[in-house]
Protein backbone atom coordinates (compact mmCIF):
# COMPACT_ATOMS: atom_id res chain seq x y z
CA UNK A 1 0.00 0.00 0.00
CA UNK A 2 1.34 3.44 -0.95
CA UNK A 3 2.07 5.47 2.17
CA UNK A 4 2.35 9.23 2.47
CA UNK A 5 3.88 11.08 5.41
CA UNK A 6 3.93 14.88 5.53
CA UNK A 7 6.80 14.60 8.04
CA UNK A 8 9.03 12.90 5.47
CA UNK A 9 7.98 15.30 2.68
CA UNK A 10 8.76 18.19 5.02
CA UNK A 11 12.16 16.66 5.86
CA UNK A 12 13.11 16.58 2.16
CA UNK A 13 11.72 20.12 1.67
CA UNK A 14 13.77 21.51 4.60
CA UNK A 15 16.90 19.76 3.36
CA UNK A 16 16.38 21.27 -0.11
CA UNK A 17 15.79 24.73 1.42
CA UNK A 18 19.06 24.63 3.38
CA UNK A 19 20.85 23.40 0.27
CA UNK A 20 19.27 26.10 -1.95
CA UNK A 21 20.52 28.85 0.37
CA UNK A 22 24.08 27.70 -0.40
CA UNK A 23 23.59 27.04 -4.11
CA UNK A 24 24.44 30.17 -6.09
CA UNK A 25 23.72 28.48 -9.47
CA UNK A 26 20.09 27.83 -8.52
CA UNK A 27 19.63 31.26 -6.90
CA UNK A 28 20.93 32.98 -10.05
CA UNK A 29 18.70 30.80 -12.27
CA UNK A 30 15.67 31.76 -10.16
CA UNK A 31 16.57 35.46 -10.45
CA UNK A 32 16.94 35.33 -14.24
CA UNK A 33 13.19 35.38 -15.12
CA UNK A 34 12.72 38.34 -12.74
CA UNK A 35 15.38 40.34 -14.56
CA UNK A 36 13.67 39.51 -17.86
CA UNK A 37 10.24 40.52 -16.45
CA UNK A 38 11.66 43.84 -15.21
CA UNK A 39 13.02 44.52 -18.71
CA UNK A 40 9.61 43.74 -20.29
CA UNK A 41 7.95 45.98 -17.68
CA UNK A 42 10.23 48.91 -18.56
CA UNK A 43 9.20 48.65 -22.21
CA UNK A 44 5.72 49.85 -21.18
CA UNK A 45 3.71 47.61 -23.55
CA UNK A 46 0.10 46.87 -22.58
CA UNK A 47 -0.28 43.95 -24.99
CA UNK A 48 -1.19 40.95 -22.75
CA UNK A 49 0.51 38.49 -25.16
CA UNK A 50 3.77 40.40 -24.63
CA UNK A 51 3.26 40.94 -20.89
CA UNK A 52 2.55 37.25 -20.19
CA UNK A 53 5.72 36.09 -21.94
CA UNK A 54 7.77 36.46 -18.68
CA UNK A 55 5.26 34.13 -16.96
CA UNK A 56 6.02 31.39 -19.52
CA UNK A 57 9.68 32.11 -19.06
CA UNK A 58 9.37 31.85 -15.26
CA UNK A 59 7.53 28.51 -15.51
CA UNK A 60 10.15 27.09 -17.88
CA UNK A 61 13.26 28.40 -16.13
CA UNK A 62 12.23 28.36 -12.46
CA UNK A 63 9.82 25.44 -12.71
CA UNK A 64 11.39 23.01 -15.14
CA UNK A 65 15.10 23.90 -15.34
CA UNK A 66 15.62 24.38 -11.60
CA UNK A 67 13.74 21.17 -10.83
CA UNK A 68 15.72 19.26 -13.46
CA UNK A 69 19.00 20.59 -12.01
CA UNK A 70 18.01 19.71 -8.44
CA UNK A 71 16.93 16.16 -9.34
CA UNK A 72 19.97 15.62 -11.60
CA UNK A 73 22.31 16.77 -8.82
CA UNK A 74 20.77 14.16 -6.49
CA UNK A 75 21.58 11.56 -9.16
CA UNK A 76 25.03 12.92 -9.94
CA UNK A 77 26.07 12.93 -6.26
CA UNK A 78 24.41 9.53 -5.56
CA UNK A 79 22.12 11.04 -2.93
CA UNK A 80 18.88 10.08 -4.71
CA UNK A 81 19.71 6.42 -4.13
CA UNK A 82 20.02 7.18 -0.41
CA UNK A 83 16.50 8.60 -0.42
CA UNK A 84 15.23 5.64 -2.45
CA UNK A 85 16.74 3.23 0.09
CA UNK A 86 15.19 5.10 3.02
CA UNK A 87 11.63 4.58 4.30
CA UNK A 88 10.43 7.46 2.08
CA UNK A 89 7.96 6.24 -0.55
CA UNK A 90 7.99 7.19 -4.25
CA UNK A 91 5.20 9.72 -3.69
CA UNK A 92 6.96 11.28 -0.69
CA UNK A 93 10.25 11.65 -2.57
CA UNK A 94 8.63 13.05 -5.73
CA UNK A 95 6.44 15.51 -3.81
CA UNK A 96 9.26 16.40 -1.39
CA UNK A 97 11.70 17.01 -4.25
CA UNK A 98 9.11 19.14 -6.10
CA UNK A 99 7.84 21.19 -3.16
CA UNK A 100 10.67 23.71 -2.95
CA UNK A 101 10.78 24.24 -6.72
CA UNK A 102 7.00 24.74 -6.76
CA UNK A 103 7.14 27.36 -3.99
CA UNK A 104 10.15 29.13 -5.56
CA UNK A 105 8.48 29.14 -8.99
CA UNK A 106 5.28 30.59 -7.55
CA UNK A 107 7.30 33.40 -5.97
CA UNK A 108 9.13 34.01 -9.28
CA UNK A 109 5.84 33.95 -11.25
CA UNK A 110 4.27 36.48 -8.86
CA UNK A 111 7.40 38.61 -9.06
CA UNK A 112 7.37 38.41 -12.87
CA UNK A 113 3.71 39.49 -13.00
CA UNK A 114 4.47 42.51 -10.80
CA UNK A 115 7.66 43.47 -12.62
CA UNK A 116 6.09 43.05 -16.07
CA UNK A 117 3.18 45.19 -14.81
CA UNK A 118 0.66 42.64 -16.09
CA UNK A 119 -2.91 43.22 -14.84
CA UNK A 120 -4.27 39.79 -13.97
CA UNK A 121 -7.80 39.20 -15.35
CA UNK A 122 -10.15 36.99 -13.29
CA UNK A 123 -7.67 36.01 -10.54
CA UNK A 124 -9.30 32.66 -9.57
CA UNK A 125 -9.16 31.26 -13.14
CA UNK A 126 -5.76 32.78 -13.75
CA UNK A 127 -4.46 31.17 -10.54
CA UNK A 128 -5.93 27.81 -11.64
CA UNK A 129 -4.11 28.05 -14.98
CA UNK A 130 -0.86 28.98 -13.23
CA UNK A 131 -1.17 26.06 -10.82
CA UNK A 132 -1.74 23.62 -13.69
CA UNK A 133 1.23 25.09 -15.57
CA UNK A 134 3.32 24.94 -12.40
CA UNK A 135 2.60 21.25 -11.74
CA UNK A 136 3.19 20.42 -15.41
CA UNK A 137 6.55 22.21 -15.74
CA UNK A 138 7.86 20.96 -12.37
CA UNK A 139 6.91 17.42 -13.43
CA UNK A 140 8.64 17.88 -16.80
CA UNK A 141 11.68 19.13 -14.86
CA UNK A 142 11.57 16.00 -12.69
CA UNK A 143 11.51 13.77 -15.79
CA UNK A 144 14.43 15.66 -17.36
CA UNK A 145 16.40 15.47 -14.10
CA UNK A 146 15.81 11.72 -13.85
CA UNK A 147 16.87 11.20 -17.47
CA UNK A 148 20.05 13.28 -17.11
CA UNK A 149 23.18 11.86 -15.52
CA UNK A 150 24.58 15.23 -14.45
CA UNK A 151 23.41 18.79 -13.82
CA UNK A 152 25.23 19.89 -16.99
CA UNK A 153 23.38 17.28 -19.00
CA UNK A 154 19.99 18.77 -18.03
CA UNK A 155 20.78 21.72 -20.30
CA UNK A 156 21.45 19.41 -23.26
CA UNK A 157 18.55 17.01 -22.58
CA UNK A 158 16.20 19.76 -21.49
CA UNK A 159 16.69 22.58 -23.96
CA UNK A 160 14.82 21.13 -26.98
CA UNK A 161 12.02 19.78 -24.80
CA UNK A 162 11.62 23.05 -22.93
CA UNK A 163 11.74 25.20 -26.05
CA UNK A 164 8.94 23.10 -27.57
CA UNK A 165 6.86 22.83 -24.38
CA UNK A 166 7.48 26.29 -23.02
CA UNK A 167 7.75 28.47 -26.09
CA UNK A 168 6.02 26.36 -28.78
CA UNK A 169 3.90 29.33 -29.85
CA UNK A 170 6.94 30.81 -31.62
CA UNK A 171 6.87 27.95 -34.16
CA UNK A 172 3.47 29.05 -35.46
CA UNK A 173 4.97 32.20 -36.89
CA UNK A 174 7.70 30.19 -38.64
CA UNK A 175 5.61 27.77 -40.72
CA UNK A 176 2.56 27.45 -42.97
CA UNK A 177 2.27 23.72 -42.38
CA UNK A 178 -1.27 23.08 -41.07
CA UNK A 179 -0.25 19.89 -39.24
CA UNK A 180 2.51 21.65 -37.29
CA UNK A 181 0.26 24.59 -36.46
CA UNK A 182 -2.46 22.20 -35.23
CA UNK A 183 0.06 20.27 -33.13
CA UNK A 184 1.45 23.50 -31.64
CA UNK A 185 -2.10 24.49 -30.65
CA UNK A 186 -2.13 21.55 -28.24
CA UNK A 187 1.17 22.41 -26.56
CA UNK A 188 0.97 23.60 -22.92
CA UNK A 189 2.36 27.07 -23.66
CA UNK A 190 -0.28 27.62 -26.34
CA UNK A 191 -3.03 26.36 -24.03
CA UNK A 192 -1.89 28.78 -21.32
CA UNK A 193 -1.81 31.60 -23.89
CA UNK A 194 -5.31 30.79 -25.07
CA UNK A 195 -6.63 30.75 -21.47
CA UNK A 196 -5.00 34.09 -20.61
CA UNK A 197 -6.16 35.78 -23.83
CA UNK A 198 -9.69 34.46 -23.32
CA UNK A 199 -9.71 35.66 -19.71
CA UNK A 200 -8.49 39.06 -20.91
CA UNK A 201 -11.47 39.26 -23.29
CA UNK A 202 -14.30 37.57 -21.33
CA UNK A 203 -13.10 37.07 -17.74
CA UNK A 204 -15.15 33.86 -17.38
CA UNK A 205 -14.56 30.15 -17.48
CA UNK A 206 -16.85 29.15 -20.39
CA UNK A 207 -14.36 29.84 -23.16
CA UNK A 208 -11.44 28.21 -21.33
CA UNK A 209 -12.82 24.83 -20.24
CA UNK A 210 -11.36 22.93 -23.22
CA UNK A 211 -7.94 24.49 -22.65
CA UNK A 212 -8.03 23.69 -18.93
CA UNK A 213 -8.97 20.07 -19.70
CA UNK A 214 -6.12 19.75 -22.25
CA UNK A 215 -3.68 21.18 -19.68
CA UNK A 216 -5.03 18.73 -17.11
CA UNK A 217 -4.41 15.89 -19.57
CA UNK A 218 -0.81 17.10 -19.99
CA UNK A 219 -0.40 17.12 -16.19
CA UNK A 220 -1.74 13.55 -15.84
CA UNK A 221 0.39 12.19 -18.71
CA UNK A 222 3.58 13.88 -17.47
CA UNK A 223 2.94 12.65 -13.92
CA UNK A 224 2.53 9.05 -15.13
CA UNK A 225 5.77 9.36 -17.14
CA UNK A 226 7.61 10.82 -14.10
CA UNK A 227 6.52 7.91 -11.86
CA UNK A 228 7.50 5.41 -14.59
CA UNK A 229 10.95 6.95 -15.12
CA UNK A 230 11.51 7.14 -11.35
CA UNK A 231 10.58 3.46 -11.07
CA UNK A 232 13.13 2.59 -13.76
CA UNK A 233 15.79 4.52 -11.82
CA UNK A 234 14.89 2.64 -8.61
CA UNK A 235 16.83 -0.35 -9.92
CA UNK A 236 20.09 -0.49 -11.83
Amino acid sequence: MMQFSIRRVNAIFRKDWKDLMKNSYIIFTLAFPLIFAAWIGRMGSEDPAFQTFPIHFALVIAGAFVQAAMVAEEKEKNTLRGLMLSPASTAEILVGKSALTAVSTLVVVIGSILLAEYKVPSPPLFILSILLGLVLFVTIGTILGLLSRTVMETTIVGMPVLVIFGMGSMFKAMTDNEMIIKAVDYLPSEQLNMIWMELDREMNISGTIDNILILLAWVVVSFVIAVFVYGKRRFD
Partner: protein
Amino acid sequence: MEHVIEVRELAKSFGNKVALKSISFDVKKGETIGFLGPSGSGKTTTIKILTAQLHPTAGEASVFGEPLEKLKDPSYMRRIGILTDNSGLYERLTIFDNLALYCDLYGISKKSIDEVLEVVNLQHDKNTPVQKLSKGMKQRVTLARAIVHKPDLLFLDEPTSALDPVNTKHIHEGLKQLNREGTTIFLTTHDMHEAEEMCDRVAFLHNGEIKLFDTPQKLRTRYGSSSVTVTLKGDQVVTVPKDEQGAEEIYRYMKDGQLAAIHSNEPTLGDIFVQLTGRNL
Protein backbone atom coordinates in the same frame (compact mmCIF):
# COMPACT_ATOMS: atom_id res chain seq x y z
CA MET B 1 17.91 -20.14 15.10
CA GLU B 2 15.93 -17.59 13.10
CA HIS B 3 17.36 -16.76 9.69
CA VAL B 4 17.46 -13.08 8.74
CA ILE B 5 18.65 -13.80 5.19
CA GLU B 6 17.99 -16.94 3.14
CA VAL B 7 19.46 -17.25 -0.34
CA ARG B 8 18.85 -20.17 -2.72
CA GLU B 9 20.62 -20.62 -6.05
CA LEU B 10 20.82 -16.89 -6.65
CA ALA B 11 22.28 -15.89 -10.01
CA LYS B 12 22.86 -12.60 -11.77
CA SER B 13 24.12 -11.84 -15.26
CA PHE B 14 24.72 -8.51 -16.97
CA GLY B 15 24.30 -9.41 -20.63
CA ASN B 16 26.87 -12.13 -21.29
CA LYS B 17 28.83 -11.38 -18.14
CA VAL B 18 27.99 -13.67 -15.24
CA ALA B 19 28.31 -11.86 -11.90
CA LEU B 20 26.82 -14.52 -9.61
CA LYS B 21 26.60 -18.26 -10.33
CA SER B 22 23.88 -19.89 -8.27
CA ILE B 23 24.96 -19.03 -4.73
CA SER B 24 23.13 -20.30 -1.64
CA PHE B 25 23.61 -19.33 2.02
CA ASP B 26 21.78 -18.34 5.21
CA VAL B 27 22.51 -15.62 7.75
CA LYS B 28 21.30 -16.15 11.30
CA LYS B 29 19.89 -13.39 13.49
CA GLY B 30 22.69 -11.59 15.34
CA GLU B 31 25.50 -12.94 13.17
CA THR B 32 28.21 -10.91 11.48
CA ILE B 33 28.85 -12.40 8.05
CA GLY B 34 31.72 -11.41 5.79
CA PHE B 35 31.92 -11.85 2.05
CA LEU B 36 35.58 -11.85 1.03
CA GLY B 37 36.73 -11.63 -2.52
CA PRO B 38 38.61 -9.51 -5.03
CA SER B 39 36.94 -6.81 -7.16
CA GLY B 40 34.46 -8.31 -9.58
CA SER B 41 33.87 -11.44 -7.51
CA GLY B 42 30.17 -10.61 -6.97
CA LYS B 43 30.23 -9.12 -3.44
CA THR B 44 28.55 -5.81 -4.30
CA THR B 45 26.11 -7.54 -6.65
CA THR B 46 25.00 -9.76 -3.75
CA ILE B 47 24.38 -6.71 -1.53
CA LYS B 48 22.53 -4.89 -4.30
CA ILE B 49 20.23 -7.86 -4.86
CA LEU B 50 19.59 -8.29 -1.14
CA THR B 51 18.72 -4.59 -0.80
CA ALA B 52 16.41 -4.65 -3.84
CA GLN B 53 18.63 -2.41 -5.96
CA LEU B 54 19.08 -5.19 -8.54
CA HIS B 55 16.80 -7.95 -9.78
CA PRO B 56 18.34 -11.43 -9.74
CA THR B 57 18.46 -13.36 -13.03
CA ALA B 58 17.53 -16.61 -11.25
CA GLY B 59 17.07 -18.05 -7.79
CA GLU B 60 15.31 -16.90 -4.65
CA ALA B 61 16.19 -14.83 -1.63
CA SER B 62 14.33 -13.61 1.41
CA VAL B 63 15.10 -10.99 4.04
CA PHE B 64 13.25 -11.12 7.38
CA GLY B 65 11.34 -14.08 5.91
CA GLU B 66 9.86 -11.98 3.10
CA PRO B 67 10.69 -12.21 -0.61
CA LEU B 68 12.87 -9.46 -2.08
CA GLU B 69 9.90 -7.77 -3.81
CA LYS B 70 8.65 -6.88 -0.32
CA LEU B 71 11.81 -4.86 0.28
CA LYS B 72 10.42 -2.14 -1.99
CA ASP B 73 7.97 -1.51 0.85
CA PRO B 74 9.27 1.48 2.85
CA SER B 75 8.34 -0.17 6.15
CA TYR B 76 11.07 -2.77 5.48
CA MET B 77 13.62 -0.13 4.64
CA ARG B 78 13.21 1.15 8.20
CA ARG B 79 14.73 -2.11 9.49
CA ILE B 80 17.73 -2.03 7.16
CA GLY B 81 20.88 0.08 7.06
CA ILE B 82 22.97 0.23 3.89
CA LEU B 83 26.46 1.50 3.18
CA THR B 84 27.38 0.96 -0.45
CA ASP B 85 30.31 2.08 -2.56
CA ASN B 86 28.15 4.80 -4.11
CA SER B 87 26.42 6.21 -1.02
CA GLY B 88 26.38 9.99 -1.57
CA LEU B 89 26.16 12.94 0.81
CA TYR B 90 24.82 16.48 0.45
CA GLU B 91 28.11 18.29 0.06
CA ARG B 92 26.90 21.82 0.87
CA LEU B 93 25.17 20.72 4.08
CA THR B 94 26.84 20.03 7.41
CA ILE B 95 27.31 16.53 8.83
CA PHE B 96 24.49 17.30 11.29
CA ASP B 97 22.07 18.39 8.52
CA ASN B 98 22.87 15.29 6.46
CA LEU B 99 22.07 13.03 9.40
CA ALA B 100 19.08 15.14 10.54
CA LEU B 101 17.38 14.44 7.19
CA TYR B 102 17.63 10.70 7.82
CA CYS B 103 16.48 11.04 11.44
CA ASP B 104 13.33 12.71 10.08
CA LEU B 105 12.88 10.08 7.36
CA TYR B 106 13.26 7.27 9.90
CA GLY B 107 11.13 9.10 12.47
CA ILE B 108 13.76 9.05 15.22
CA SER B 109 15.06 11.71 17.61
CA LYS B 110 17.98 13.86 16.52
CA LYS B 111 19.64 12.92 19.81
CA SER B 112 20.79 9.79 17.93
CA ILE B 113 23.11 12.00 15.88
CA ASP B 114 25.48 12.68 18.78
CA GLU B 115 25.54 8.99 19.69
CA VAL B 116 26.32 7.85 16.18
CA LEU B 117 28.95 10.55 15.60
CA GLU B 118 30.74 9.19 18.66
CA VAL B 119 30.78 5.73 17.07
CA VAL B 120 32.43 7.06 13.91
CA ASN B 121 34.69 9.46 15.83
CA LEU B 122 33.29 12.66 14.30
CA GLN B 123 31.67 14.15 17.39
CA HIS B 124 33.70 17.37 17.09
CA ASP B 125 32.92 17.95 13.40
CA LYS B 126 29.14 17.84 13.29
CA ASN B 127 28.77 21.45 12.10
CA THR B 128 31.37 21.09 9.34
CA PRO B 129 30.06 21.16 5.74
CA VAL B 130 30.61 17.79 4.09
CA GLN B 131 32.52 19.38 1.18
CA LYS B 132 35.29 20.29 3.65
CA LEU B 133 35.79 16.70 4.83
CA SER B 134 38.46 14.23 3.70
CA LYS B 135 37.48 11.05 1.83
CA GLY B 136 37.85 8.97 4.99
CA MET B 137 35.69 11.38 7.02
CA LYS B 138 33.00 11.27 4.34
CA GLN B 139 33.04 7.48 4.49
CA ARG B 140 32.52 7.71 8.26
CA VAL B 141 29.54 10.05 7.73
CA THR B 142 27.92 7.60 5.29
CA LEU B 143 28.49 4.84 7.82
CA ALA B 144 26.89 7.02 10.53
CA ARG B 145 23.91 7.53 8.23
CA ALA B 146 23.58 3.77 7.73
CA ILE B 147 23.46 3.06 11.47
CA VAL B 148 21.77 6.18 12.88
CA HIS B 149 18.43 4.33 13.21
CA LYS B 150 20.01 1.20 14.77
CA PRO B 151 18.84 -1.15 12.02
CA ASP B 152 18.01 -4.83 12.57
CA LEU B 153 20.12 -5.71 9.54
CA LEU B 154 23.13 -3.75 8.32
CA PHE B 155 24.70 -4.15 4.87
CA LEU B 156 28.23 -2.75 4.66
CA ASP B 157 30.11 -2.73 1.38
CA GLU B 158 33.82 -2.22 2.16
CA PRO B 159 33.06 -0.15 5.30
CA THR B 160 36.64 0.78 6.17
CA SER B 161 38.32 0.81 2.76
CA ALA B 162 39.33 4.49 2.94
CA LEU B 163 40.13 4.66 6.65
CA ASP B 164 43.33 4.80 8.67
CA PRO B 165 44.04 2.07 11.26
CA VAL B 166 42.98 4.24 14.25
CA ASN B 167 39.57 5.05 12.79
CA THR B 168 39.15 1.50 11.47
CA LYS B 169 39.66 0.19 15.01
CA HIS B 170 37.21 2.78 16.38
CA ILE B 171 34.57 1.80 13.85
CA HIS B 172 35.09 -1.92 14.41
CA GLU B 173 34.41 -1.35 18.12
CA GLY B 174 31.25 0.60 17.29
CA LEU B 175 30.01 -2.09 14.91
CA LYS B 176 30.73 -4.83 17.46
CA GLN B 177 28.69 -2.88 20.01
CA LEU B 178 25.83 -2.55 17.51
CA ASN B 179 26.06 -6.29 16.85
CA ARG B 180 25.95 -7.02 20.60
CA GLU B 181 22.77 -4.94 20.75
CA GLY B 182 21.17 -7.26 18.18
CA THR B 183 22.02 -5.92 14.71
CA THR B 184 22.84 -8.59 12.15
CA ILE B 185 25.73 -7.44 9.97
CA PHE B 186 26.48 -8.48 6.39
CA LEU B 187 29.75 -6.99 5.21
CA THR B 188 31.96 -7.29 2.19
CA THR B 189 35.66 -6.66 2.40
CA HIS B 190 39.04 -7.16 0.78
CA ASP B 191 40.62 -6.94 4.20
CA MET B 192 41.23 -10.36 5.76
CA HIS B 193 42.12 -8.80 9.13
CA GLU B 194 38.77 -7.03 9.17
CA ALA B 195 37.04 -10.32 8.34
CA GLU B 196 38.91 -12.19 11.06
CA GLU B 197 38.21 -9.52 13.65
CA MET B 198 34.58 -8.82 12.82
CA CYS B 199 32.99 -11.93 11.36
CA ASP B 200 31.39 -14.99 12.93
CA ARG B 201 31.49 -16.66 9.50
CA VAL B 202 33.16 -15.74 6.23
CA ALA B 203 32.37 -16.68 2.64
CA PHE B 204 35.08 -16.72 0.00
CA LEU B 205 33.61 -15.41 -3.21
CA HIS B 206 35.47 -15.97 -6.46
CA ASN B 207 34.14 -15.50 -10.00
CA GLY B 208 30.57 -15.31 -8.69
CA GLU B 209 30.79 -18.54 -6.68
CA ILE B 210 31.03 -19.19 -2.95
CA LYS B 211 34.13 -21.35 -2.62
CA LEU B 212 34.00 -21.73 1.17
CA PHE B 213 31.69 -20.59 3.96
CA ASP B 214 32.62 -21.22 7.59
CA THR B 215 34.01 -19.66 10.76
CA PRO B 216 37.51 -18.17 10.40
CA GLN B 217 38.87 -20.58 13.05
CA LYS B 218 37.49 -23.69 11.32
CA LEU B 219 38.88 -22.52 7.99
CA ARG B 220 42.31 -21.94 9.47
CA THR B 221 42.28 -25.36 11.15
CA ARG B 222 41.06 -27.12 7.98
CA TYR B 223 43.71 -25.50 5.83
CA GLY B 224 46.42 -25.45 8.47
CA SER B 225 49.80 -27.11 7.97
CA SER B 226 50.54 -30.59 9.35
CA SER B 227 53.74 -29.30 10.92
CA VAL B 228 54.93 -26.62 13.32
CA THR B 229 57.98 -24.43 12.98
CA VAL B 230 60.36 -24.53 15.93
CA THR B 231 62.98 -21.83 16.46
CA LEU B 232 65.94 -22.94 18.55
CA LYS B 233 68.42 -20.84 20.45
CA GLY B 234 71.00 -19.59 17.99
CA ASP B 235 68.20 -18.85 15.47
CA GLN B 236 68.18 -22.34 14.00
CA VAL B 237 64.72 -23.11 12.53
CA VAL B 238 63.36 -26.67 12.21
CA THR B 239 60.04 -28.03 10.94
CA VAL B 240 58.43 -30.61 13.17
CA PRO B 241 55.39 -32.77 12.26
CA LYS B 242 52.21 -32.49 14.38
CA ASP B 243 52.37 -36.12 15.54
CA GLU B 244 53.77 -38.24 18.37
CA GLN B 245 57.26 -38.19 16.95
CA GLY B 246 57.08 -34.40 16.62
CA ALA B 247 55.88 -34.09 20.23
CA GLU B 248 58.84 -36.09 21.45
CA GLU B 249 61.20 -33.93 19.40
CA ILE B 250 59.78 -30.73 20.86
CA TYR B 251 59.95 -32.25 24.36
CA ARG B 252 63.64 -32.99 23.79
CA TYR B 253 64.34 -29.39 22.66
CA MET B 254 62.59 -28.09 25.77
CA LYS B 255 64.37 -30.50 28.08
CA ASP B 256 67.75 -29.52 26.61
CA GLY B 257 66.93 -25.83 26.98
CA GLN B 258 67.27 -25.25 23.23
CA LEU B 259 63.67 -24.10 22.48
CA ALA B 260 63.19 -20.40 21.70
CA ALA B 261 59.73 -20.37 19.99
CA ILE B 262 57.05 -22.54 18.39
CA HIS B 263 54.87 -21.30 15.48
CA SER B 264 51.70 -23.21 14.65
CA ASN B 265 51.87 -22.33 10.91
CA GLU B 266 48.17 -21.45 10.95
CA PRO B 267 47.30 -19.89 7.58
CA THR B 268 45.67 -16.45 7.34
CA LEU B 269 42.36 -16.14 5.51
CA GLY B 270 44.35 -14.52 2.71
CA ASP B 271 46.63 -17.60 2.48
CA ILE B 272 43.58 -19.88 2.30
CA PHE B 273 42.05 -17.71 -0.42
CA VAL B 274 45.23 -17.91 -2.51
CA GLN B 275 45.39 -21.68 -1.92
CA LEU B 276 41.80 -22.07 -3.13
CA THR B 277 41.66 -19.67 -6.05
CA GLY B 278 45.24 -19.06 -7.06
CA ARG B 279 44.86 -15.29 -6.67
CA ASN B 280 45.17 -12.67 -3.96
CA LEU B 281 42.32 -10.89 -2.23
